[in-house]
């Protein structure tokens, strides 16, 4: 049986530790008999990310582990390739305590006074919304792995790039899949913040003209502890599909309570967190057939498998990367690595490199139109026999859709 709640773990520790890690790895690399690494000045990479507070769940699942893995891998290879010259990565990293103000202030310091060579983004739509204009002003390329907002795209910030698929492609993919599978009615609940509202709006637009009708839509607040009354009223309406535009704790809450009341629609979809290993650990056999936001798994490519294995090797079997944002975070680092190898640390040149080409990554070819990643289409994943398989679109599928969903186990 998986053990989702291990005793004290050794993975991620506060700032100094992370920085020391990177430094130590860097030092080791420098000490190694490598002609390139000799006396190379470190590349200083700054970021602030949630290690405490409510954002830390997402940040420590999908984002910071990738930063640490990246630095370790690069330093083990002698350092980051800067136009052919290997230089060790040195992190200037701190906890933003899940506070926008702390986050903004830290990035202002990193870019304004510390003048680090590169920055990596914070976690979440809200923090990116606050920091993106700043990074743009200081002209730091900003490849955000965990921001989902149409408004961020509309701001047209030349230095800002969104790696995740946005609400419109995600909801269009879901609706297309439901339609193809013969669903007629949909009920939805959505968290009443930027993420939930934008996805809800995108879902409504996608449903128009699809032949499917929305029989129930209700919002709920962050930190909700009981969705029972809403789920019971949705159960009475017996929709073909349930769509939860939810965050990880609510994804699990909605699933548990649906199982509790015996609400088992033909399609059960929940958003952030469904692709987490935690979901499978908590729901066990009940995860079978549950749909969610996802875009890759280790079967996708050899590169995806290598990334998955390296992640598990570094952080342990209980910390698999999630099958959605983790892969996009890694893709962002791959693109940044390629950019620096090609054009060095000239930030304008990095920005142009990112904006222009098609970038092969572990999750597929990434290509930007403005700020938006249009290379990876919206996708739907489904838990099947312990793996989160990609079931839509067909071009990226790793398995075929299982429908209707089996009864909750």
């Amino acid at each position, binding site marked *: 049986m998986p*053990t*989702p*709640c*291990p*005793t*004290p*773990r050794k*993975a*991620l*520790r*506060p700032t100094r530790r992370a920085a020391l890690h990177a430094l130590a790895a860097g030092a080791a690399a420098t000490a190694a008999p490598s002609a390139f690494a000799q006396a190379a000045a470190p590349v200083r990479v700054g970021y602030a990310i*949630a*290690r*405490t*507070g*409510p954002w*830390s*769940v997402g*940040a*420590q*699942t999908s984002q910071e582990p990738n930063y640490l893995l990246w630095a370790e891998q690069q330093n083990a290879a002698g350092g980051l390739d800067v136009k052919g010259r290997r230089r060790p990565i040195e992190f200037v990293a701190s906890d933003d305590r*899940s506070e926008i103000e702390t986050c903004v202030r830290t990035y202002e310091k990193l870019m304004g006074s510390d003048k680090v060579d590169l920055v990596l983004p914070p976690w979440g739509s809200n923090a990116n919304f606050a920091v993106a204009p700043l990074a743009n002003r200081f002209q730091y390329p900003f490849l955000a792995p965990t921001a989902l907002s149409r408004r961020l795209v509309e701001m047209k910030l030349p230095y800002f790039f969104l790696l995740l698929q946005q609400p419109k492609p995600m909801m269009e993919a879901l609706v297309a899949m439901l339609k193809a599978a013969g669903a007629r009615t949909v009920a939805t*609940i959505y968290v*009443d913040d930027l993420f939930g509202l934008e996805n809800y709006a995108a879902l409504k637009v996608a449903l128009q003209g699809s032949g499917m009708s929305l029989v129930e839509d*209700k*919002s*709920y*607040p962050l*930190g*909700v*502890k*009981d*969705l*029972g*009354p*809403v789920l*019971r*009223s949705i159960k*009475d309406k017996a929709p073909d599909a349930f769509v939860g535009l939810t965050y*990880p*704790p609510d994804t*699990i*809450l909605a699933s*548990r309570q649906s*199982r*509790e*009341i*015996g609400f088992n629609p033909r399609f059960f979809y929940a958003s952030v*967190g469904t692709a*987490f290993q*935690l979901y499978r*650990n*908590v*729901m*066990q056999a*009940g995860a079978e057939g549950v749909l969610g936001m996802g875009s890759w798994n280790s079967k996708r490519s050899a590169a995806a498998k290598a990334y998955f294995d390296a992640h598990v090797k570094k952080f342990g079997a209980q*910390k698999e990367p999630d099958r959605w944002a983790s892969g996009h975070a890694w893709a962002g680092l791959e693109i940044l690595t390629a950019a620096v190898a090609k054009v060095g640390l000239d930030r304008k040149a990095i920005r142009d490199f990112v904006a222009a080409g098609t970038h092969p990554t572990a999750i597929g070819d990434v290509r930007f139109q403005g700020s938006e990643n249009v290379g990876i289409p919206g996708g739907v994943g489904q838990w099947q026999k312990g793996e989160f398989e990609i079931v839509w679109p067909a071009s990226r599928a790793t398995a075929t859709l299982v429908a209707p969903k089996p009864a909750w186990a």
Partner: protein
Amino acid sequence: VTPTVAWELLATGLVTGGVYALVALGLNLQYGLMRILNVAHGEFLMLGAFLTCSAHTALGVSPLAMMPVAFAALALLGFGIHRLTFRRLAATSPNVDVFEARGLMVAFGLMFLVQNAAQLIWGADLRGYDYLSDSLPIGGGVAFAANKLVLLAVALALAAALIVLLRTTLLGKGVRALMQSPVGAQLVGIDTRRLHPLVFGLGLGLAGVAGCLLSMTYTITPAMGEPYTVTALIVITLGGFGSMGGALFAGLALGVIEAFGMHFTSPSFKAVLSYAVFIAVLLWKPDGLFTRR
């Protein structure tokens, strides 16, 4: 509303209300009886949840067996914390009001300390496990996860036990006397130096039990505590400080009102509903529903 739906909502509300009442009992001992506004109450609940989760997933210990362990561990921690902080405060504060204000500051410190300690030990990940989650029908076409019914049963049993303890035993009378008049209590021979840490430890122990049970039904993180503290504060204010029956009634009533409210509006209005009830009751009965003078 058909009778079936009404019964469903009533049952859902009672189960959720049981959670509220359970969380509130421990704080009620601390604030209601001792004027220690322990805003770190939710953090101690979180500790109980993490202890249970770790023991269950790493060692395979049943969460139900962890209930007394969590109680004892947190109660011991409570004695230690009381000795290190609140005992000194009680000795140096000129009156209860000053003690309350200083105690609040200490509790804030504890909140940060405990939360960050948990973060260091267990990390920030969301955690959870699957235990007693099978659906049990309770009649009328309504079913609940077994772990929630256990939670409700424990909340009812603990509230009943506390009511009996406080009303009928000498210890309970001593505790109540302590609340009514600390000086008077000492004059009639009540050993406040022993009673204080005991009640504080009992409060923390109850938080541990609540955390243990909640870890079966919800996912947990080091930051999970604060909303529970707020809920507990609302419940004990509604019920009347120090009244265990009041806390139980207020918790259950709040749960039921929210369930019906959410059905007719949306969960987004839950906070509005809770606070509307809170304000209305305080306007009507400023000392809470069950305060006895």
